[in-house]
């Protein structure tokens, strides 16, 4: 595995000058993945914050080949690129290994791009799918997605007099991808740099398809100061809301087990999108949130235990 001294020397493949908000977690995740990745790379991305901040004609932040065509077809796009690579390699027109990576937001992965994702994984194309999950459709102004946690305030699941934000719990995309029996899938976040690097390397050691889900805080959408992006990312793990785990060849492995997990309110209280939960009338929702986090965590522990045998 590349150590920090190797990574310091890597060329920054996501150039400064991009138009992401100050403190944006998503572009940080992209930067970290590109540092860790084997080269050369060819990438695809769906429409979203990443696309808009990184490629406004005539500027592009991408120092590697990047293709954006539409919103729901990032996985279909990488399928086409990879198919072209396969056939042109067979014909001797390309004779180097190229690594394919998709950088998709939660919108383009969990929702509108879901079909293409499932199809591309089922067809066993060789690529790494990196989902930068900021838990809402941020680019269009913070609308709920199926990745939005329950009770979060978004503009299409707002907190109001009657309703306390999003009513449904978030979709477990990891389980869905794992159900496709991929060789490797992992969950990580930007605050755990070494964990993220290791997972990218591990994913690329497999032909694919492989999947990494990265939690990326969004200062604007989550309602926090830009300087707290990393702290909030860290707390998501420390509260067991976003456990760092991986699935490799049928075995679940928890990579980091907080010895003293913090209560979920430590994470919720830092974010404007959960501020309404601290009102008196919503106290029971905080308890429900804690229960949800605990149950999911226990289920994960069970899976690790059972599959590890």
């Amino acid at each position, binding site marked *: 595995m590349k150590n920090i001294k190797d990574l310091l020397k890597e060329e920054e493949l996501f150039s400064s*000058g991009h138009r992401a908000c100050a403190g944006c977690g998503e572009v940080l995740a992209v930067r970290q993945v590109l540092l860790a990745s084997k080269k050369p790379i060819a990438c695809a991305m769906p429409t979203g914050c990443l696309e808009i901040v990184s490629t406004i004609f005539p500027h592009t932040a991408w120092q590697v080949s990047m293709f954006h065509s539409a919103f729901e077809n990032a996985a279909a796009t990488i399928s086409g690129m990879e198919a072209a690579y396969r056939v042109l390699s067979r014909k001797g027109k390309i004779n180097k290994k190229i690594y394919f990576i998709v950088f998709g937001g939660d919108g383009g992965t969990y929702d509108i791009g879901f079909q293409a994702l499932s199809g591309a994984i089922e067809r066993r194309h060789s690529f790494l799918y990196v989902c930068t999950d900021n838990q809402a459709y941020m680019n269009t102004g913070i609308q709920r997605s199926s990745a939005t946690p329950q009770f979060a305030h978004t503009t299409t699941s707002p907190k109001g007099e009657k309703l306390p934000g999003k009513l449904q719990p978030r979709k477990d995309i990891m389980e869905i991808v794992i159900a496709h029996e991929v060789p490797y899938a992992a969950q990580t976040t930007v605050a755990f740099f070494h964990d993220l690097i290791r997972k990218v390397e591990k994913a690329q050691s497999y032909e694919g398809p492989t999947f990494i889900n990265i939690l990326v805080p969004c200062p604007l959408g989550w309602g926090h100061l830009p300087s707290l*992006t*990393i702290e909030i990312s860290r707390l998501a793990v420390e509260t067991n809301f976003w456990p760092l785990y991986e699935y490799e060849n049928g075995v679940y492995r928890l990579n980091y087990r907080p010895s003293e997990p913090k209560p979920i309110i430590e994470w919720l209280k830092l974010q404007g999108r959960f501020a309404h939960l601290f009102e008196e009338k919503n106290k029971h929702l905080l308890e429900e949130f804690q229960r949800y986090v605990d149950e999911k965590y226990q289920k994960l522990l069970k899976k690790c235990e059972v599959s590890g045998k």
Partner: protein
Amino acid sequence: MSSYSNEEKKECFIISWKNLTQGALIRDLKRIRENKTGSWRSLKPIWNKEKCINCYRCWMHCPDAAIIIKNDKVVGINYDYCKGCGICAHECPRKIQAIIMVREEK
């Protein structure tokens, strides 16, 4: 007929539709460096060389790759692009505090 003045056309990167890349393809990958996002700042990080222990936490977590590294050592901050988000100051270990945020002077 165009509503752009000749001055504006000279500034503008597009002179005419006749000399565009097909499909809005971008080949010049360095042009984005023109966009100096440092102008966005209202807070500015100040790095103290004496206190820095080169743990690299600032470098690991900067969304704009604005921490400058030379020969495996932090040497400063790229103010052309630093947006002043404050992640570096916040992540610098509390006991070290090699980076502090100050008001940007205009």
